[in-house]
């Protein structure tokens, strides 16, 4: 069914109710509303569903397809690993936005998008017709990208790169590391979810060990990248707070990761072999979530190209892709970015379906990383759509010579932001 002017249909529906005549059947009224399906209830999807439903005030039929009833945020999951937050503090229910804004919550996975029929197919075979879809599936892990590792080994050598039980597993394994034990992290290649995330996690490992008096322990990072986000700041922080405990090795030194062996907890590089590791955190290479790949929305590298002005897929004009799955130019793959992109996509869809007012896309991101208690560093920027990509108009980065007062204020700001973004997404 194609809607030329949805306002006209909506008005017809309302007067039909008042007159109780020809078009009085509720089913007809229900069909008059444009339908938007949001796939994925993370930072992108939850924000998109809420903003679509809230700002449309009943004029849109919004369905959130998400199997979980609550969401554990990947952002600040490192703070849970480090003992700064409880698991409950980083987990949030969808109840409030579902009831407050009349969002339909389909509690299962989406198994396919039938782009020809314009229907989202759910795991149990139910088909949801749509006028627009927002695809926000997050990432999929490339289990075959680390020799010797795979999905069968993700309990022995966890990734912890999708928040939930994996995060709790990482915390339990950290708590069990003995004094003098070795932790090896296999860091991911670009592009990946949360550029500073692995290094904030290293900081949390070091903090946990130090707090437990296990200062003879060692943390080794085997990194396929020559450099990483906020590197100078992290390395300064590790030296300052955890001297001698953390060693980062780039590809020129380790000469390539050759394999890992979960059975013996061994990590072999071209340079050294680490045997009997107390813990091995493998963060593999990634792609956009499977549903995006299966729907033909991704490029050969596995990420989804979008129009920088509105987050619309360049492959299908009825589909928007937001968050980690999208190719968002200068924006990093982060929860803040996903939330920012979701608001743009929601606005653009209301513009298309309801003739709502739209404005030029504006995006923003800040990534805060906790290095040690009261010592937080940040990186971020503001962005706009430009012809080739979403482009930063201004960026900022913490400085190595900041005093402790600034780092404390940044730590507080990080806590304030988290309280704000979860209120923004879930209430």
């Amino acid at each position, binding site marked *: 069914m194609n809607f030329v002017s949805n306002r006209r249909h909506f008005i017809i529906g309302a007067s039909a109710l008042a007159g109780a005549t020809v078009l009085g059947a509720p089913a007809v009224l229900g069909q008059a509303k444009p339908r938007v399906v949001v796939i994925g209830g993370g930072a992108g999807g939850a924000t998109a569903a809420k903003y679509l439903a809230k700002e449309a005030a009943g004029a849109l039929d919004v369905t959130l397809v998400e199997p979980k009833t609550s969401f554990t945020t990947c952002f600040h999951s490192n703070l849970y690993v480090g003992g700064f937050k409880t698991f409950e503090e980083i987990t949030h229910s969808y109840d409030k936005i579902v009831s407050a804004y009349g969002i339909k919550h389909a509690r299962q996975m989406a198994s396919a998008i039938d782009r020809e029929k314009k229907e989202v197919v759910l795991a149990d075979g139910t088909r949801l017709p749509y006028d627009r879809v927002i695809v926000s599936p997050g990432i999929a892990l490339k289990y075959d990208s680390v020799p010797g590792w795979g999905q069968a080994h993700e309990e022995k050598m966890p990734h912890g790169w999708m928040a939930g039980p994996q995060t709790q597993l990482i915390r339990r394994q950290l708590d069990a590391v003995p004094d003098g034990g070795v932790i090896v992290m296999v860091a991911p290649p670009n592009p990946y979810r949360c550029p500073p995330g692995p290094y904030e996690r290293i900081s949390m490992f070091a903090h946990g060990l130090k707090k437990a008096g296990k200062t003879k322990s060692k943390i080794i990072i085997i990194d396929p990248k020559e450099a990483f986000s906020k590197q100078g700041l992290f390395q300064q922080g590790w030296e300052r707070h955890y001297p001698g405990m953390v060693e980062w090795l780039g590809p020129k030194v380790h000469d390539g990761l050759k394999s890992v062996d979960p059975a013996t907890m061994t990590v072999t590089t071209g340079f050294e072999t680490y045997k009997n590791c107390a813990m091995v955190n493998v963060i593999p290479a990634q792609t956009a979530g499977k549903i995006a790949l299966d729907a033909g929305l991704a490029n050969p590298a596995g990420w989804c190209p979008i129009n920088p002005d509105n987050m619309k897929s360049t492959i299908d004009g009825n589909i928007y892709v937001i968050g980690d799955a999208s190719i968002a130019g200068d924006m990093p793959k982060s929860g803040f970015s996903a939330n920012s992109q979701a608001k743009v996509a929601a606005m653009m869809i209301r513009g298309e379906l309801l003739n709502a007012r739209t404005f030029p896309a504006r995006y923003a991101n800040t990534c805060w990383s906790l290095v040690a208690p009261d010592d937080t560093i940040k990186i971020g920027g503001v962005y706009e759509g430009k012809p080739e990509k979403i482009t930063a108009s201004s960026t900022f980065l913490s400085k190595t010579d900041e005093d402790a007062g600034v780092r404390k204020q940044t730590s507080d700001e990080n806590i304030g932001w988290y309280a*704000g973004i979860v209120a923004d997404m879930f209430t």
Partner: protein
Amino acid sequence: MVVGLQRMRVTRQRFFAAFALSGAAALAALGLALVEPAGMARASTVAGKGDKAFGEYLAGTCTTCHQVTGRSVGGVPPILAWPEDQFAAVMKSYRAKDRDNQVMQAIAGRLSDEEIYALAAYFGSLPLQPNIK
């Protein structure tokens, strides 16, 4: 007859103008003044200047830290119901880097005066809620 119609037109204009007043002026009108009414009258040169719908859209960048309920965590100040000229002055000082905060400097740095007043109008219109900590 003609005189009567003219009088009606003026009244309608004043009526719509009242809606364009900033939140604090509206609060003042309700007897919940935060600032001296006389001070507000002088500041009303910018009252009603900002496009509130535009401000609501731009506020999407702000509300992840500055909560729309006015709840304040981690020292992030609430920014509801500020007189619009004061809101604009604070944002302009971040834009000029006279105030220290890298996030605010970056955000304010890309805002035009029109956008700052739009934000001032939107946040200024949000009601203060009692018992918000």
